[in-house]
């Protein structure tokens, strides 16, 4: 099933506009609310069951995609197409977080970010070598979790005092027990195989109160992927992710001790609810020194992550300035003090 959005006015192509949150016609400028867009203007073609080929609704060419793509552009005419059958049934996302940063804003923000890199080589910042910017809806699972943590520990309180010729160290031991119920909401885990988990983790946080019920028009004009792992397969990852949050909460409830020794920690996490969502990410492909660098930007907040190249010269300059400045400062201090000026 291939979905294509035609303008009710002029028959032109309609795309999702991030600034307004509306479907916008590229030729006459007509805008339509996604919730109220009439099905009459949505062209859907169901592919025959056997055929794994999709045909572009606009020009009739065969759409070439890889197996995970759910939204893309026709490689011949450039029309935005959404592959509906890859977004239905168990593959239907529950929610979508629409892009709020447009391609131009993303590009400008990325260039600014490149310039701010204190260790980034000069040529990297100046050369305008963005090879490609792609807006991708990345599949994530959001988990609502109930955790029950039971902890046994031994804590000590130490007091020292002197009496006569001796110093006494008095250690009091306490048996500590905590039973804590924790509830986590909307913990995101990236469900796409292609994207680097570490990179995706650094993109957080997303503002989930702007989540919208999923409608295919949000994807018009972007690339979208379907999930490679379901919520059960990713459950161990989300457990690992909240593990450190649980530990820090446990520690915050145990106070007043000099040392705490944990003997037993049982954490039981239940998946209360999990839903499949698409989150907006701008991907940048950047050429520098014959190698490609990949950066990602949170399509909602504009936060940029990715490993920029490091300039040896800049590192050396920072290093010598700090070390040299520190040396001069210390010399100056000792000169003032030892020279009898103070």
């Amino acid at each position, binding site marked *: 099933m291939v979905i294509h959005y035609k303008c009710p006015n002029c028959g032109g192509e309609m795309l999702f506009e991030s600034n307004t949150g509306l479907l916008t016609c590229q030729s006459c400028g007509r805008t339509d609310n996604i919730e109220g867009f009439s099905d009459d203007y949505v062209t859907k073609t169901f592919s025959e069951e056997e055929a794994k080929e999709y045909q572009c609704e606009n020009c009739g060419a065969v759409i070439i995609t890889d197996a995970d793509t759910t939204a893309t552009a026709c490689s011949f005419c450039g029309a935005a197409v959404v592959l509906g059958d890859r977004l239905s049934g168990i593959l239907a996302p529950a929610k979508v977080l629409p892009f709020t940063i447009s391609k131009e804003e993303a590009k400008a923000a990325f260039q600014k970010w490149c310039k701010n890199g*204190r*260790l980034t080589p000069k040529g990297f910042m100046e050369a305008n070598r963005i090879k490609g910017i792609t807006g991708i809806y990345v599949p994530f699972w959001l988990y609502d979790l109930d955790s029950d943590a039971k902890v046994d520990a*031994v*804590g000590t309180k130490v007091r020292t005092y*002197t009496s006569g*010729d*001796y*110093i*006494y*160290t*008095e*250690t*009091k*031991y*306490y*048996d500590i*027990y*905590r*039973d*804590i*119920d*924790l*509830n*986590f*909401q*909307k913990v995101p885990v990236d469900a796409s195989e292609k994207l680097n988990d570490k990179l995706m983790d*650094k993109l*957080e*946080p997303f503002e989930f109160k702007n989540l919208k019920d999923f409608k295919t028009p949000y994807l018009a004009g972007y690339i979208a992927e379907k999930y490679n792992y379901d919520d059960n397969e990713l459950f161990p990852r989300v457990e690992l992710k*909240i593990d450190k*949050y649980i530990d820090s*909460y446990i520690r915050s*409830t145990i106070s007043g001790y000099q040392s705490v020794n944990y003997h037993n920690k049982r954490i039981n996490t239940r998946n209360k609810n999990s839903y499949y969502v698409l989150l907006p990410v701008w991907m940048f492909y950047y050429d520098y020194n014959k190698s490609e660098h990949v950066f990602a930007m949170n399509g909602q907040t504009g*936060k940029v*992550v*990715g490993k*920029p190249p*490091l300039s040896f*010269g800049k*590192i050396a*300059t*920072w290093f*010598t300035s*700090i*070390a*040299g*400045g*520190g*040396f*001069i400062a*210390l*010399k100056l*201090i*000792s*000169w003032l*003090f*030892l*020279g*009898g000026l*103070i």
Partner: protein
Amino acid sequence: MKKTISLSIIFSFIALLLVLQLLPREAIAATDPKQRIFDYANLLTVEEKDNLEIVANQYSAESETDIVILTTNDTQGKDIIPYMQDFYDEQGLGYDKKHGNTAILTLDMKNREVYLAGFYLAEEYLSDGRLDQIRNKITPDLSAANYYDAFTTFIETSSKYMRISPWINPELFIFKLWFQILAPIAIAAIIVGTMAFHSSGRVTVNDRTYLNTAQVMNRKDRYIRTTVTKQRKPSDNNKGGGGGFGGGGTSGGGHSHSGSRGSF
């Protein structure tokens, strides 16, 4: 380009500091006939003695304190401290006046003991602690019979300490060259390392980002037992190290002084 400029600024600054440090040394070398080296034990050659007189004369003027060396084979049955005190009273040592500012090193060759003392201005600037530091510096030379080197070090170090405010510890680690070189390098490495580490973006979610509610359902902090260990208080006897003990005192003539005593 920028790098070379900043480096050359750093180097010229260091050079300036070194020059400034050297400047006051060249002042006043006027001869005065005052004797400051009393080598009754004949540890020095005539030439060494003359040299030390010149050095002592120069540094005494700089610190406005007579820096005196006293060696003996015979303390006339007295302990080293009273021997030194009586010598000070009799000679009327002092830079500014009779019985004035004096730093004195006394060497008892018979009992192989050394005693450093400071009178008046030197009592304030060469406290017991500072004299301990100087004594620790020269003891190896004394033990090795390098008397000339030990005396030179005593004269130079005392004069240097006389110009440093009494509340500063002159041997503090931040005044040491190894620290002044290593510490900025370590700090620079840490700063640049964090900069490189954060260049790929930081994690900006914290413990509370996804935590909705948390409730302690059950808690227990039950006292089990107490253990007590005791340890003897460290005694003050070994303060000063190297067999040194005792601080200053007051001479028969009523002149109070600081001091540091040890054997070599």
